[in-house]
């Protein structure tokens, strides 16, 4: 398997092999699914929507519905306004969502479709029912990665929906990052244990891990409601979890509504989870309950029981930047040695931060952003050669 991968590494400036990232729109689609009653809409060729739905539904083994503007060659020349206009009419008439979240694709970006303008016209023509909303994010596939798309759509939620009434609400916003529904549910659960009210958005728990009841619901019960996202402008603070995925939205919330931001790394491992608990308990002005202390203790017990198997082990790590940063922290806590660390997403901060995390334990670690899995495998094959020779 992968016998075409050479240990000899030749520099590549043009060819990407076995990417460790994908493009923006799927990140935007995933974020959109974290809004309750939302229909994600892909403004581009129908291939994009098909691929993104397929990828997500395969992973979660749960329904992923989204609509497409289904551009043809004509639309690519004359613009996609008629497509989006017709799509909105069909979506609201047939599928009746509370909100449609439009993201763009390389096609609609290259031809320069002005989505807000197209939507405005559709509203004027009565294609959008009163009380329903349409938000949008520009998510060109040739910029950044899928994380950029997630961040962009989350920011769009703030831009379009969050409002400041001036009356501070007893709640903390949590932007959870590009994590799984179970992670989101767990972060909410901890907040619940702490008795701190949070508004989490996006929130795909109970959307992409819905139960089997014999009844199909197009809009499952989960997801942050429009009302909740609106109220985020009045929260005490925002806990943005994951710089790459969550900081942009938190920043806008601070600029737009004056909600202060605490930027955290993903609560993976001991110290990062401590930081998450600490942030919430500070904002909520509560004590940490015994239940959480016990959970923490059980986790430490596993680590100490298993520590002999972790100690000094060399690890190669790849994934999304926020995840990899947090994982490196955890691996260091376990006395492991991340020797090869890559992410597919671009961003120099990744290399700086990971180097900082690893500087004591693994000063010679190879760290690279905007990398791919072929290169990582070559590093590994190359190191086997070192051991053999």
């Amino acid at each position, binding site marked *: 398997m992968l016998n075409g991968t050479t240990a000899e590494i030749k520099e590549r400036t043009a060819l990407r092999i076995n990417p460790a990232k994908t493009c923006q729109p799927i990140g935007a689609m995933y974020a959109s699914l974290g809004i309750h009653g939302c229909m994600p809409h892909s403004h581009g060729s129908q*291939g994009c929507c098909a691929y993104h739905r397929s990828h997500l539904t395969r992973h979660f*083994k749960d329904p992923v519905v989204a609509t497409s503007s289904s551009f043809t060659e004509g639309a690519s020349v004359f613009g996609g306004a008629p497509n989006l206009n017709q799509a909105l009419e069909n979506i609201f008439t047939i*599928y009746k969502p509370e909100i449609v979240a439009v993201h763009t694709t390389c096609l609609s970006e290259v031809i320069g479709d002005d989505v807000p303008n197209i939507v405005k016209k559709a509203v004027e023509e009565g294609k959008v029912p009163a009380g329903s909303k349409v938000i949008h994010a520009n998510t060109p596939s040739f910029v950044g990665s899928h994380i950029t798309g997630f961040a962009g759509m989350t920011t769009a939620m703030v831009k379009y929906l969050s409002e400041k009434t001036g009356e501070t609400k007893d709640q903390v916003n949590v932007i959870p990052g590009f994590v799984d529904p179970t992670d989101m549910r767990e972060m909410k659960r901890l907040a619940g244990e702490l008795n701190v009210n949070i508004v989490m958005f996006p929130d795909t728990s109970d959307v992409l891990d819905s139960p089997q009841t014999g009844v199909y619901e197009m809009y499952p019960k989960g997801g942050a409601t429009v009302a909740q996202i609106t109220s985020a402008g009045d929260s005490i603070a925002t806990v943005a979890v994951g710089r790459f995925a969550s900081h942009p939205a938190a920043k806008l919330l601070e600029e737009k509504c004056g909600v202060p931001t605490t930027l955290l790394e993903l609560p993976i491992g001991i110290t990062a989870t401590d930081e998450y608990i600490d942030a919430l308990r500070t904002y909520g002005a509560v004590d940490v309950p015994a239940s959480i202390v016990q959970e923490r203790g059980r986790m430490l017990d596993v680590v100490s029981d298993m520590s002999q198997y972790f100690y000094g082990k060399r690890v190669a790590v790849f994934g999304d930047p926020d995840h990899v940063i947090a994982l490196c922290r955890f691996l260091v806590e376990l006395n492991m040695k991340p020797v090869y660390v890559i992410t597919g997403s671009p961003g120099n901060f990744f290399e700086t931060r990971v180097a900082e995390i690893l500087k004591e334990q693994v000063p010679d670690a190879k760290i690279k952003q905007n990398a791919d899995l072929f290169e990582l495998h070559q590093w590994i094959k190359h190191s086997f050669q070192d051991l053999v020779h």
Partner: protein
Amino acid sequence: MATEITPPPINDPEAAEAKATLETMLKAYPAKTARKRAKQLLVNDPETPPQIGANSRTTPGIITQRGCTYAGCRGVVIGPIHDILHITHGPIGCGYYSWLSRRNLVRPRHVDDTNYLQYAMSTDMMEEQIIFGGEKKLAQAIREAYEIFHPKAISIYSTCPVGLIGDDVHSVARDMKEELGINVFAFSCEGYKGVSQSAGHHIANNGVFKHMIGLNDEGDKAEFNINLLGEYNIGGDAWAIDDVLRKCGIHVTATLSGDVTYDQVCKAHTVDLNTVMCHRSINYMAEMMEKKFGIPWIKVNFVGAEATAKSLRKIAAFFQDKKLTDRVEEVIAQGNAELKPIRDEVTARCKGKKAALFVGGSRAHSYQHLFSDIGMETIAAGYEFAHRDDYEGRSVLPTIKVDADSRNIEEITVEQDPVRFKARKTPEQLQALAEEGFTFKDYSGMMSEMKKNTLIIDDISHHEIEKLVELRKPDIICSGIKDKFIIEKMGIPCKQLHSYDYSGPYTAFEGAANFYREIDRMLHTKVWSYVVPPWLKTAPVTTDATPE
């Protein structure tokens, strides 16, 4: 918003019910959408199949199964060729999503060969290339790929931005072919072309014909030498067909394109007969090879026991050789004998159950044979991206109007090869075949083989699936991954016919047994019966009724 489907039949309650179902589906649509869909939702009549509005543009916002031209070209037709490199020219997504996401399986021919399908390659176009052009990056990417892998050939696929920014991928391919001394060719398969994956098939067929077919005239030495066209080896389908053909003494030079090598494609023009499995994706190749090289073609179907027997007999009949005909009968008898116990067992449990199939451009038809093998009835079916001939039969080809969206898909002019054209049958042999009722390039389409008053739904939408389940309650639906979990949330099993739910093969006798067992499993999985918990089935407990 009621819209007429077909002229109301007289005294035909089944037809009236079918019509009512379709009209209910249309009710939810805005007027323009309803008018368009009304041409794609039909009540079947096998004797005189009604005209269907197939291969027309997708309605925006309707939630379609369809994908794009890039997928049809790179994903379906060319992708399975496993000893050439496949480089996607575009932003990273297209290359990423088509990376091992289709189960066209491969067996490298020698232990040291590399299966290139494991590698997703892309020029990962960024903003700089969108603004200033990506040709230089493409050329460099090809160079870098060659430096690492030294392949026999490299294939390049355009994505949506490429056509818009004007990168000339064909010119880059020509330059690199010269520079590297290997075959390098490109496909202008931008996603926005055509209306679905189908345009990608056509573009792919053109490219295979232009750049690969005919490069090697040294054919395989075999008495009965055929190609298997439009067979992608999903789950091992091509291997199962190969096995049964080999038992008969029939040699397959090239399968287009399941588990095929570059060399095999290059010599595909040396056979005596082309057999076509998936009519939609490969009929272009069959026609072009006949025109240029004189190779006749027939439609076959190895999905289903009866269908497999029929196809084997037809291939044997073509060769007009008694030895072969007798051998084929032996193989059929043996195949059926081995299949009988499992077929009888499953039929007993599944007989009378109802199936609906909405998938692809061929499978929605061919799989009906497997269901009828085990006594199951198909109540509704439709393709995702097929054309009118796949529904109504090839006889309607002269009447098909190519609309604006498909007009730009190139039809290449093919002429008889001055040296290599060779009629495979003499006029006398053709006469003898005709007298036996043998027909070439015949495909009478899906509708002629479905019962009267069944529902035909082209490019089915999510809404129509929901309504179909609600109104007609099929016992199983065959579809793709995007529908699977939606349908199963409704408590109905859904069999994926693109991925086979990661099983297979389903072709020939061996595959038929697999499919029967799969359907048996899916229809009789206990989990569906546990959906309603006991406390919701009985009366609420009162305070008097405390357990002992």
